[in-house]
C-alpha cells in the first residue's frame, strides 16, 4: 500500500480546478472577484458579456439616432421584445434537453387563436375560460409531440419539423371554422387580454410593485443565506449579496422610471409600466423555480448532459422529456397570447416559421447552449432584448429588413461560435 499512502493532496494541481462558480469558493469580496474572473477566463462567462454587449449596442444606436434613447422608444422596445423572449423561454425547455422544437411558433399560434376565437363573437366565452382551453391545447400538442419523440425514438428535429408544417395547417382550420374570423383575422375582443400589452399600471403602482419585489427578493435571500449559515454551509459573502441586491434595485428603478415618464402626446399622455413586463417577470420566475428548485428541473439538466447517466440513476427519461416538450408548447401558447395582445388580433398569416428561429436565436444569443444541459430563463430574456434592440435600432437608422436580418444573423453566429469555443475550452459539459 505504499502507493496509496502518498498524500492525496498531491493528486491535483490547482490549475485543474477550472470553472467554478465564485459563490461556491469565495469567502470575501476580493476572493469572489478573483474566482469570478477566473471563471470568465475559463469559459463560464455568465450573463456579463451579453449585458455589456447590450449596453454597447445601445450606446451605438443612441449616438446614431436621437430617437433611440427616448422613453417612448425604450418602452416600445421592451414591449416588442416580450413575444420573442417568451418564445425563447419555451424553446429553452427543448434546448436544455439537447433537443430542438421547431414547432413552437405555430403551436403557440394554434393555442392563441383557439383562445381568441372562443373569447370573441359568436362564442363569447369568459376570457379566462378561453385562455385555459387554448393553453391546454398547446400543452396537449406538446405532450403529443413529446410522446412521438420519446416512444418512437424519432429525433425531435424531424417530429417538430413535421409539426411546423402540420400545425400551420391546423391554424388555418381554426380560422376556417371560426365564424367570427373575418378575412383571416381573429380580433382580440376582450379588454383584459388587450390590456396585457397595451394597458399600463399607474405610475404609483409601478413604484409600489418594484419596492415590494425588491423587498421580497431581499427577504428571501437573507432567509436562505442565514439558513445555510446556521447549518454550517458556505454562503456567499455579505458584500456580494448587497451588491446584487443593489444592482437589482437600481435596474428596476431605472426601468420603472423610464416607463413612468410621459410617452404620449400632450393631449393624450401615456405613462406607467405595461402589464406585459410583470407578466414576463412572472413567467421568468416560475420557469426559474421549476428548473432550479424541483426534481423535474434537475432531471431535465441531467438528461441534457447525459441521458445514460440519468437512466442509470433511475430517472424516467422518456417521461421527463415528454413533460418538457409539453411545457415548451404551453409557454409558446403564452407567447402567442402576448403576440395577439400586442397587435390586437392574430392573423392567418402568422409567421411561425420565422419566429421559431428568432426564439432559438434569443436563447442561444443569451447564453443557453445548443448542445444541451445549459441554459437559464434569463438567457432568452437577454437574447430577446438583444434581438429587439437590433431590430429597433436598425429600423431607426432606416436600415431595411434585409439589413436587420443580416445583422441578427451575424450576432447569432457570434453567439453560437462563442458557445462552441467555450465548450472546447473545457466548460462543464465538454466531458473530462
Amino acid at each position, binding site marked *: *500500500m505504499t*502507493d*496509496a*499512502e*502518498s498524500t*492525496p*493532496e*498531491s*493528486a*491535483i494541481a490547482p490549475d*485543474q*480546478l*477550472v*470553472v*467554478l*462558480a465564485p459563490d*461556491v*469558493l469565495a469567502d470575501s469580496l476580493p476572493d469572489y472577484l478573483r474566482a469570478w474572473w477566473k471563471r470568465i477566463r475559463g469559459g463560464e462567462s455568465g450573463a456579463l458579456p451579453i449585458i455589456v454587449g447590450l449596453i454597447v449596442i445601445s450606446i451605438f444606436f443612441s449616438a446614431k439616432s436621437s430617437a433611440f434613447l427616448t422613453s417612448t422608444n425604450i418602452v416600445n422596445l421592451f414591449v416588442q421584445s416580450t413575444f420573442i423572449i417568451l418564445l425563447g423561454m419555451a424553446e429553452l425547455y427543448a434546448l436544455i434537453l439537447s433537443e430542438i422544437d421547431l414547432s413552437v411558433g405555430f403551436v403557440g399560434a394554434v393555442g392563441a387563436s383557439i383562445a381568441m376565437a372562443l373569447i370573441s363573437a359568436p362564442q363569447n366565452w369568459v376570457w379566462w375560460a378561453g385562455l385555459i382551453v387554448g393553453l391546454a391545447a398547446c400543452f396537449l400538442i406538446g405532450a403529443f409531440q413529446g410522446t412521438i419523440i420519446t416512444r418512437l425514438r424519432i429525433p425531435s428535429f424531424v417530429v417538430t419539423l413535421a409539426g411546423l408544417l402540420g400545425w400551420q395547417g391546423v391554424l388555418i382550420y381554426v380560422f376556417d371554422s371560426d365564424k367570427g374570423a373575418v378575412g383571416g383575422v381573429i380580433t382580440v375582443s376582450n379588454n383584459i387580454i388587450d390590456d396585457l400589452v397595451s394597458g399600463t399600471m399607474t405610475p404609483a403602482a409601478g413604484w409600489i410593485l418594484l419596492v415590494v419585489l425588491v423587498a421580497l427578493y431581499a427577504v428571501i435571500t437573507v432567509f436562505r443565506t442565514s*439558513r*445555510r449559515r446556521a*447549518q*454550517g*454551509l*458556505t454562503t456567499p459573502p455579505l458584500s456580494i449579496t448587497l451588491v446584487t441586491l443593489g444592482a437589482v434595485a437600481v435596474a428596476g428603478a431605472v426601468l420603472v422610471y423610464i416607463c413612468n415618464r410621459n410617452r404620449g402626446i400632450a393631449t393624450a399622455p401615456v405613462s406607467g409600466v405595461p402589464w406585459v413586463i410583470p407578466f414576463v417577470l412572472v413567467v421568468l420566475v416560475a420557469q426559474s423555480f421549476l428548473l432550479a*428548485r*424541483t*426534481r423535474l428541473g*434537475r432531471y431535465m*439538466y*441531467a438528461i*441534457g*448532459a*447525459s441521458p*445514460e*447517466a*440519468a437512466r*442509470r*440513476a*433511475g*430517472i424516467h427519461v422518456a417521461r421527463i422529456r415528454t413533460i418538457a416538450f409539453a411545457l415548451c408548447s404551453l409557454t409558446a401558447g403564452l407567447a402567442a397570447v402576448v403576440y395577439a395582445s400586442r397587435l390586437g388580433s392574430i392573423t392567418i398569416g402568422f409567421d411561425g416559421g420565422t419566429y421559431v428561429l428568432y426564439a432559438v436565436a434569443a436563447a442561444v444569443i443569451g447564453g443557453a447552449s445548443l448542445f444541451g*444541459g*445549459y441554459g437559464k430563463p434569463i438567457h432568452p430574456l437577454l437574447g430577446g432584448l438583444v434581438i429587439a434592440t437590433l431590430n429597433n435600432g436598425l429600423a431607426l437608422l432606416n436600415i431595411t429588413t434585409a439589413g436587420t436580418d443580416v445583422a441578427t444573423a451575424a450576432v447569432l453566429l457570434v453567439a453560437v461560435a462563442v458557445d462552441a469555443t467555450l465548450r472546447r475550452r*473545457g*466548460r*462543464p*459539459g*465538454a*466531458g*473530462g
Partner: protein
Amino acid sequence: MAEGAPLLELRGVSKVFGAVQALNKVDLSVPPGKVTALVGDNGAGKSVTIKTISGLWPPTEGQILWEGAPAHIHSPNDAEALGITTIYQDLALCDNLDIVQNMFLGHEKLRFGLLDESAMEIEARKTLADLHVTTVRSIRQPVASLSGGQRQSVAVAKAVMSAAKLVIMDEPTAALGVAQTAQVLDLIERLSSQGTAVMVVSHNLNDVFAVADQISVLYLGRLVAQGPVSDFDPQVVVDYMTTGQSTRTEDAG
C-alpha cells in the same frame, strides 16, 4: 476464502451469445467486506461477468446466490435492490451538475416538495469525509471541473450513498495517472474498511496486488484460479491470465 459465507456466489454460471460461449461454468465467490480483484486478458469474460452480476445480461444457465440465498437478477434494478452497485468506466456522471447533485441524482431529498439542497449538501459532505475524499475544494463545483480520480471518488461516494453492500468497479484506474491511481486505491481500501465488499476489474497487476484481498482469474470464459492474494504472485497471475494454468505453484486455484 476461509472466513464466513460469501456475499455473492456464482455457481456454474454460463453465458452464451449465439455461437459464442462467453462464460463457461464460472464458480465465483465474493466475500463480504473484502476487495476481490477480477483479472483476465481481453476477451476473458470480465465484462460479461460484471454485466451478469449487475443484471444487464442474465445468465444463460447457472445460479447466483446473494448472502447465501438464490437471487434472480434480471435487471439493473434487481441488482440495485439487493445492494449491488456497478461503476462503469464512463462513471455515468452529469458534467453540468455539481458533486452534490450528482451524488443524489435520482434520489434527491425534498422539503415541502422542493429540492432540499442544504440537507443534501450536509449528507454529501459527510459521506465524502468518511471516504477521506479531501481533494475537492468545494462539493458545489461541477463534476466537469474534477480530475479523473476525483470523478471516480464521486462515483464511489454515490454508490456508498445508495447503501451498496457490493460495489463493482470496472477498470477504475485505467485512465488515471500515478497520483490519481493512488487516490482511487486509497478509496477502495477505505470502502472495504467500512464493511463494503468491492470487486475490482483490472488489468493492472500492480493495482491488484496493492488493494486486493482475493484474486479471481478468468481465462477464455472459465474461472481458472481463485484464492487469497497471498497464494499468488504477479508472475503466477500472468501465467493464469495468458495460458489458463500455472506450473509455478500448486496451491492456487
